[in-house]
């Protein structure tokens, strides 16, 4: 069992409603699922991930108000995921940026 309690009992807990996770857009559930799968297959633990998540949330919180986008838990989640993956060399930062730029330039309707 990939036990989320370690996240849920911390300030970095994912938003829930009546015990169920809340996703406001499909990409949020994908970002969640990617992390959950990596935890399930032992690439890192929720504890490891939590450290990066708390860091990402802190970074967001210390931004100047004018630079802050409206609060979005899963954008911090995504930042944490990118960071833990590059830190552990599971993902090459450059390759990732290239792919993201490539996807961004695709014609409308070709992204997921």
């Amino acid at each position, binding site marked *: 069992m990939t036990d989320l309690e370690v996240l*849920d009992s911390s300030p970095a807990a994912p938003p829930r409603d009546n015990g169920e996770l809340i996703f406001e857009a499909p990409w949020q559930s994908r970002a969640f699922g990617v992390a*959950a799968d990596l935890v399930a297959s032992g690439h890192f633990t929720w504890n490891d991930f939590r450290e990066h998540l708390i860091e990402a949330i802190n970074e967001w919180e210390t931004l100047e108000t004018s630079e802050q986008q409206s609060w979005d838990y899963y954008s911090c989640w995504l930042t944490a995921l990118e960071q833990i993956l590059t830190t552990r060399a599971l993902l090459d930062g450059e390759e*990732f940026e290239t792919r*993201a730029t490539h996807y961004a330039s695709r014609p409308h309707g070709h992204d997921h």
Partner: protein
Amino acid sequence: MTEKHDHTHETNAGSSEIRTAALEDLLVEKGLVDRSRIDSLVERFEHDLGPMIGARLVAKAWLESDFQSRLVSDADEVLRQENIRGGEIEHVEVKVNEPGIHNVVVCTLCSCYPWALLGLPPAWYKSPEYRARVVREPRKVLEEMGLSLEPDTEIRVWDSSSETRFLVLPEQPAGSEDLGMEDLAALVTRDSMIGVAKALSP
């Protein structure tokens, strides 16, 4: 996601949507993640944790007064008999709502909560505001959350700790006397077992 219909969105490599797609695809190609596993993990985390176990206990207590007495006098023993464990269940106490007495649960220090009975705590339960104010002005907080109590109802606030978790046994709603276990359990919301709401009416 209000920027969804913004045309600049499609060409923004910094958008979360694009970055997530790029990340997932790369990890799939490297064999680090699997799309169908991701699907089932999301599905499981979205739906498997919830207040159903607590709701069934409450429904059973409504149906069987003997079970209710045992639950109130020694919840730990009842949970053992019912084979409910896991989560953070250490010592559980059940507090019964009755005419003139309303119970509500908080954890003033952090977010201690009977996970195994109620799933995961809602965000507001963990908020500094709820934790501080429900002790100081419970009636007002409950009213803000949509629960108006009679002025002469005594409100008892129970502060959870890592040793003791509380479950509120809400009053059985009028008109539910003929219902069976499943239908009754469906009336028992998570919030009613924390004590910030009443059980639903049938």
